[in-house]
């Protein structure tokens, strides 16, 4: 039977003030080693100031077929955007 190390997803904060961003994945036996491997595999050139590692099995992802039901409703809601509203020139910048 295969005794393969589980897969982890790696997220890196590139600079102070930015979000962590998904950069890839790696195999490691546990969280501590996943962190060490992430440092070696994904930050050899100052790519980050902080790392998150998450077991891939813990991620719930939306299915490609859900794209319509999930995202189309907001397409129709044009009134959510400021450009929907005409403000008279006399009012000035708003």
């Amino acid at each position, binding site marked *: 039977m*295969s*005794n*393969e*190390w589980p*897969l982890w997803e790696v997220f890196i904060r590139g600079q102070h003030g930015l979000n962590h961003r998904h*950069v*890839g*994945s*790696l*195999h490691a*036996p*546990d969280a501590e*080693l996943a962190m060490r491997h992430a440092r*070696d*595999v994904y930050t*050899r*050139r100052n790519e980050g100031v902080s790392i998150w590692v998450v077991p891939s099995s813990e991620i719930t*992802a939306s*299915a*490609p077929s859900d794209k319509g039901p999930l995202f189309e409703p907001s397409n129709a809601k044009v009134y959510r955007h400021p450009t929907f509203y005409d403000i008279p020139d006399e009012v000035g910048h708003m």
Partner: protein
Amino acid sequence: MYAQMVKSEATNDDPEKLAAFQARIDAGEKIEPKDWMPEGYRKTLIRQIGQHAHSEIVGQLPEGNWITRAPTLERKAILLAKVQDEAGHGLYLYCAAETLGVSRDDLTEQLLSGRMKYSSIFNYPTLNWADIGAVGWLVDGAAIMNQVPLQRTSFGPYSRAMIRICKEESFHQRQGYDLIRVMAQGSDEQRAMAQDALNRFWYPSLMMFGPSDKDSVHSTQSMAWKIKINTNDELRQKFVDQTVPQAHYLGLTIPDEGLVWNEAKGGWDFSEPDWSEFYEVLKGNGPCNTDRMEARQKAWADGQWFRDGLMAHANKAAARRKAAKVAAE
């Protein structure tokens, strides 16, 4: 290239779905792992990305061979960093392949059993320090030719891995050129070593692009799927045009009497490598095939107890944490 002669797989999918898939690719959309894709696309990509990953990993061997014998501490640190990058590149690519549903262990076992290939170039030996320069300059130079366009490949994870790799690859080629430049401008003996390294690595580097594929069915399918962006001949020509002036700058001679500037095409005419040698190397009869495979098999077998030990420790620690949590509740 790092992936040579990748056979594309036939596909028996619903023609309507295939047409919709092709339309997405033609529109420049990226295909992501969970999207529907033809079986042939999936299988061809696994083979290509896997072969590419194996090449990065096996590619550490000819260079790793010289880490302990680098002439200065600086050169040693540089070579160590480069070889570490190659390991990283292999890992990015294995991860991309795994998103297609193949496991890492499966890929490793296919390499070790010889069912999957790695680039022919790594079956040539690095005999002396000048070879390390030639590998960076020529081998990584040839790899870059192929990898830069692959950043635009249709499969999202492969494209993103290529972008990361290309960012790092330029250092590899430049350190190699810098190394061979120092030798080419050194003593007569060093200069002769630099020329000798170029003589030995020139044709194997041209072979990296694979034989002419202008009439290949596989190539046509892979190009339609944007798994392959340029033909082998286009990339080889680009590589020669780029490399010849770099050699001339060093005062080195390209070992090809047929090399002539062709004004009409705006490029160099050059001699083809000996393709029978290429096929022999692919079959396993190159100078170092046996050594390379034995080194990989030994590393995998020797590491088994370590991989298993860490996994056993992780499982025990997780069980202990769970028990402590239950006790606390």
